[in-house]
């Protein structure tokens, strides 16, 4: 089976069949992430479409030496979704505390494929190994699109603390995911 990177490299040559296969592979990740951040289904479809068109348009600029195709695409998706949220900062649901509490992830949404399940399970376990403040800081930023001052406000913590917890938490997550990946445990 071709890797995401191979498909992206073919996409860069204008190969629409490769792009179609790449879409099937990554669209659930992109759509799931965008919808988690934006909530609104219609907006989520719109932004997912923008992201996928952007992948097509800029595939020629992807450099495999600087990160995986998967990471590249999800980075584009996350930033676009977050930028959309910020541009609509005034929207009422953004200040809704109920919305903030739902930073707890609904794990049942996870697409039902075996490899995705295994990976999701591992991420879930690694998230569980973080301190509460590390995990909440990361989740509010990543899944809700909050800025770190917003996260600090929400959690009643100081700004430098939140900045540091986000970094500590990601380092711990990186180490947890990295070590288990190689050893298959």
């Amino acid at each position, binding site marked *: 089976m071709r890797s995401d990177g191979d498909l992206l490299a073919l996409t*860069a040559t204008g190969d629409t069949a490769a*792009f*179609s296969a790449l*879409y*099937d592979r990554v*669209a*659930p*990740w*992109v759509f*799931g*992430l965008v*919808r*988690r951040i934006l909530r609104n289904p219609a907006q989520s*479809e719109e932004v*997912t*479409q923008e992201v996928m*068109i952007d992948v*097509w*348009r*800029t595939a*020629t*600029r992807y*450099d495999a*030496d*600087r*990160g995986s195709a*998967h*990471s*590249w695409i*999800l*980075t*584009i998706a*996350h930033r676009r979704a977050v930028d959309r949220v910020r541009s609509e900062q005034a929207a009422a649901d953004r200040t809704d505390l109920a919305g903030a509490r739902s930073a707890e992830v609904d*794990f049942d*949404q*996870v697409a039902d494929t075996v490899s*995705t399940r295994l*990976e*999701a399970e591992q*991420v879930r376990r690694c998230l569980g190994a973080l301190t509460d403040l590390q995990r909440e800081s*990361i*989740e509010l*930023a*990543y*899944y809700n699109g909050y*800025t*770190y*001052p917003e*996260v600090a406000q929400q959690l009643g913590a100081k700004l*430098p603390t*939140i*900045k*540091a917890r*986000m*970094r*500590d938490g*990601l380092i711990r*997550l*990186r180490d947890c*995911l990295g070590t288990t990946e190689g050893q298959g445990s």
Partner: protein
Amino acid sequence: MTDPDVHTLTGPYVLDALPSDERTRFEAHLTECTFCTTEVAELRQAAVKLATQVSTPPPPALKANVMAAIEDVRQLPPQVPVAASTPKPQRFARRSVLALAAAALAVAAAGGVAIDQYQDRSAAERANQQMAAVLAQPDARTVHGTVEGGGQATVVLSTRADKSVVVLRDLPRLPKNRIWQLWMMDPANKATSIGLSTGDITQLVNGSTTGMATFGLTVEPKGGSRTPTLPAAAVVPLA
């Protein structure tokens, strides 16, 4: 941006949690901080895994829309690999080194200076200008050496400005748990770390130039080391 805790911004940056003005400033900082760019790349690989928790198939109709839309969307032209068209002589004449450095600058301007692919243009342009400023110093000189296992190390330095530009090209791939570490050594062989890199890089070094005798490149465990692990992959006398 010399805020001492600027390095902790890698976390919020990777999570897209920096307010836009801080994002812009941090992206400018990234062009000067190899440590930060490396950390951003690594943390990003971890952060994107969070998306596994929320994977959801999009409505089927969306794919038809996207496939129809791309018919009308022109792909960006590929970036021309400037450095690749430069011949690789074992001995560089001064002019060809400048050409190589200029090629590296062109790559830098296109976003190649940092591992991060998403920073805005202004940050890359700033790095470009700073490097051009080193090249423009009247006492600027270039030295070069080969890297064990393949590749070249070129250092353009100005002792007057106490700045240098290190250009590493065609380096061999390292195992995942290893990283290149860049050093400047004084005449007594005391080494000062000037950065980390996962691969080819054009790195501006502010300071750590005047009074230094040698540039060194070593392979270190991920995260870098306090002192160089020997033997070095490249040792380039600066004189």
